[in-house]
């Protein structure tokens, strides 16, 4: 059943203290690196000093001979896996690529690529052992830039990589892994009908998810081959699946335990350390702990792609867009798998377009393999399309919100990526933006205002949740979704709403792979939607069972019992004159009425409502230094239904802040040797507290009828608009179109000088 009438809700929509809150403010919460096991060894990785090289030989004998060293592993200690596509994480993953990313086999493909690992009794001995491993390399030419990598004659990373989706099918290997295309209508003909055309070429640099918690795990493999993994990830079922595949084990031989996770944003949707720690534990017979340094995190995990986005828009004088085209070239890093496909699918999804074509290229180069990052691909492609929309508005002399309203996607719009959109709330975000006092507030000298919108699909998928009524009438929830930003609170609230009890009577936990049914990872903005659906259904089954038990106690038929405000009551005067039975009253008698009252529900949730957002950004530039300050920021988003509004606002604010960082200062900087030159928080410049204004989050609620409470995913779409919102604001302040991110001070000052 559904609970879409907001007026009826007592718990959903309120702002209770999150159930795991006290642990998090007192230091009691156990994160990945906080775990310890008796007899634990320290595991460390040796990483490639080259951007691209053939591994000629690896001699580990001296390291193994060092006192205190208990195991050394290389790719020879892992099965050589055949190419096999799977969908276990947030995007498609090839197991062979994953295996070779975890431990280089034959070739190293980027500076920082793992080549060997040791387990030793102390950190110092592990370091000394790494220094004793003798790797002979045959250094190869490398390529970092995406367009360089696409050129004929570029150093080829994989000799067996032939462009998929290209016609004719190439006969020579290249770095272009894939070409994808999405189209509606006849774009070329439609452009001929345009009164106005704008064209632009936009670029973004790779940026890292930059979660504050480095990857960490503790793995113990018993002599019977049974393994237990404690790790910080966005999905312990994902960890189990990948480790089983990479080590050649059965899923049931591995128990993956979720620790608290210190941020992920997509970057913890695959494995780096766990399979290595598992191999080391197998060889040593002891538990092994591995923790990345911050430098490891930057060099060898994440980031997301940098990209080139070429956009062409054609419109009539009245602002109607008649044709739109985008060509996207995304860096995948060392292995195929950039988010170019979702980049293509999202970049025009805000608009109702009849003639549109988007072409994308997935390109490998000698950089770390990219990982998902919040709305993967969409911020990159949308930076191009929403910057172009701003240019189109200027060329037409139209207000940028009016232009968007004129062309906005609405219920019934056929999206270029396939579906017909339903229950979407894009237009309300534009109308709210237009009416917001921010949009008409005065601006001072060197100040400018930008607007941009964004889209993200949101996903559903497989989730499990169980609800247990305890003997005293309190309630426990178990789900399989790692809680990355407050989802336990939402689960408890939805359960409490269904059962009609106070939320503090419900305690949610995240169960391990052996204690709860399969649950896809925390990503795609799916947890409140899909896991929330499982928990709601489990709570409903419990509620039905409570009515059955009350009926037994009263000795009346179950359909003569109603459930109201957490109590069983007779359904009407004819049912009998019984005093209401509280949940606790029924729980205490459960043994006598049929035993424990529990329910576990697994779903494959469909119908996640797409998310839309419109952001307004004010900036001020210092023309002499090129410094940009964000003065004011308003983020308006259709959230479906805010289960816990504070955490929905938090997602919006956090996504906006990450997008602002992407726009202004974050970037991967490579030196001439193909080494990442800024692998630390000193020079990889995420926004700090003093960089940011308050971020006003405006929640629009267009409920999603496919979710019991109307929820839509909210976590990803807020990172989509900010890149263009900032650039459009800089355009407004300076008259200059900054088409290359980040808009760092040297770049902006140079633009002023060139004017």
């Amino acid at each position, binding site marked *: 059943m559904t609970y879409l009438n907001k007026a009826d809700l007592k718990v959903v929509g309120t702002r209770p203290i999150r159930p795991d809150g006290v642990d998090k403010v007192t*230091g009691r919460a156990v994160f990945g690196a906080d775990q310890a096991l008796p007899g634990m060894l320290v595991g460390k990785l040796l990483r490639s000093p080259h951007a691209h090289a053939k591994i000629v030989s690896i001699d580990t004998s001296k390291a193994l001979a060092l006192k205190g060293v208990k195991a050394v592993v290389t790719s020879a200690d892992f099965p050589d896996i055949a190419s096999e596509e799977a969908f276990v994480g947030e995007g498609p993953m090839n197991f062979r690529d994953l295996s070779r990313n975890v431990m280089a086999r034959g070739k190293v493909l980027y500076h920082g690529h793992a080549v060997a690992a040791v387990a030793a009794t102390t950190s110092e001995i592990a370091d000394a052992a790494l220094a004793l491993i003798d790797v002979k390399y045959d250094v190869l030419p490398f390529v970092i830039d995406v367009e360089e990598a696409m050129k004929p004659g570029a150093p080829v990373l994989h000799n067996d990589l032939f462009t998929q989706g290209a016609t004719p099918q190439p006969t020579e290997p290249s770095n272009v892994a894939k070409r994808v295309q999405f189209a509606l209508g006849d774009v070329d003909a439609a452009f001929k009908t345009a009164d106005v055309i704008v064209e632009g070429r936009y670029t973004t640099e790779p940026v890292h998810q930059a979660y*504050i918690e480095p990857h960490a795990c503790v793995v113990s493999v018993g002599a019977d081959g049974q393994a237990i993994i404690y790790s910080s990830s966005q999905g312990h079922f994902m960890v189990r699946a990948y480790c089983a595949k990479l080590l050649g084990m059965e899923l049931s031989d591995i128990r993956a335990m979720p620790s*608290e996770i210190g941020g992920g944003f997509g970057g913890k949707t695959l494995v780096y350390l766990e399979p290595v720690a598992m191999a080391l534990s197998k060889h040593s017979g002891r538990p092994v702990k591995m923790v990345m340094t911050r430098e490891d995190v930057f060099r060898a995990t994440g980031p997301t792609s940098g990209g080139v986005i070429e956009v062409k828009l054609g419109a009539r004088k009245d602002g109607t867009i008649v044709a739109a085209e985008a060509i996207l070239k995304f860096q995948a890093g060392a292995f195929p798998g950039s988010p170019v496909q979702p980049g293509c699918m999202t970049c025009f999804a805000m608009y109702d377009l009849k003639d549109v074509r988007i072409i994308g290229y997935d390109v490998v180069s000698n950089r770390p393999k990219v990982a998902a990052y919040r709305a993967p691909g969409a911020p990159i492609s949308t930076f191009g399309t929403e910057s172009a929309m701003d240019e189109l508005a200027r060329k037409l002399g139209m207000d940028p919100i009016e232009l968007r309203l004129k062309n906005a996607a609405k219920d019934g719009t056929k999206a270029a990526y396939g579906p017909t959109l339903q229950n979407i709330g894009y237009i309300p975000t534009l109308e709210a933006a237009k009416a917001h006092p921010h949009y008409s507030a005065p601006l001072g000298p060197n100040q400018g205002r930008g607007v941009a919108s964004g889209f993200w699909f949101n996903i559903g998928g497989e989730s499990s949740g169980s609800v247990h009524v305890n003997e005293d009438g309190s309630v426990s929830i178990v789900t399989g979704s790692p809680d990355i930003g407050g989802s336990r609170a939402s689960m408890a609230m939805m359960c409490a709403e269904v059962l009609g009890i106070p939320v503090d009577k419900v305690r949610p936990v995240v169960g391990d792979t052996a204690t709860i049914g399969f649950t896809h990872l925390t990503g795609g903005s799916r947890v409140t939607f899909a896991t929330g659906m499982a928990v709601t259904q489990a709570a409903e089954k419990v509620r039905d069972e409570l009515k059955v038990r009350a009926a037994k106690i009263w000795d009346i038929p179950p359909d003569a019992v109603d459930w109201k405000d957490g109590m069983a009551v007779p359904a009407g005067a004819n049912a009998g004159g019984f005093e209401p039975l509280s949940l606790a009253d029924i729980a205490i008698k459960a043994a006598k009425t049929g035993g424990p009252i529990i329910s576990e529900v697994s779903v494959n949730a469909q119908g996640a409502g797409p998310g839309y957002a419109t952001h307004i950004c004010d900036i001020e530039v210092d023309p002499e230094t090129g410094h940009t300050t964000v003065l004011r920021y308003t983020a308006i988003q259709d959230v479906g239904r805010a289960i816990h509004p504070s955490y929905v606002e938090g997602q919006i604010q*956090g996504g906006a802040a990450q997008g602002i960082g992407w726009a202004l200062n974050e970037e991967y900087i490579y030196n001439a040797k193909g080494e990442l030159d800024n692998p630390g928080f000193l020079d990889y410049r995420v926004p700090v*507290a003093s960089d940011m204004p308050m971020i006003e*989050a405006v929640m629009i609620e267009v409920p999603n009828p496919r979710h019991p409470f109307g929820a839509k995913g909210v976590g990803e779409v807020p990172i989509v608009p900010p890149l263009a919102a900032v650039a459009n604001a800089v355009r407004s302040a300076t008259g200059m179109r900054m088409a290359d991110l980040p808009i760092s001070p040297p770049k902006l000052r140079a633009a002023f000088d060139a004017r």
Partner: protein
Amino acid sequence: MSKIHVTTTINGEPAEFLTEPQMSLLDILRDEMHLTGSKEGCGSGDCGACSVIMDGRVVCSCLVLGVEAEGKDITTIEGIATGEDLHPVQRKFLEHAALQCGFCTPGLIVATKALLDRNPDPTETEARYWLAGNLCRCTGYDKIIRAVMDAAAEMRGA
């Protein structure tokens, strides 16, 4: 060289430990004293997740040698609450939902306590600059700053 014996005070209790010279105070707190509330986000003083108060000043415990703790008075996140009573800063972080993943939270709470001990009435700008060394990637800082300002107001009795 053999390990060095250090006598110190941690969260009001006398404590002693053995340390090698290169070990940081953070290593000691986490690995020897099993106080894992202080986090390592960078190991280079750039993220603030390991913040502790040492003799009244907030410092990054990753940038203090364990041996330097000799004779010092150290407060970690585990020492901020009084028994079951949360410190107002902790309470306000919860009320304002000023955390998502919670990994940076211990450092932010320790640094905020140090701020309010010194400056009970900070401006928003002062709070933002004081906390600039505490990176948070989840929240965009909005709710954190609101929690800090509200905690300050409550502690002033305003």
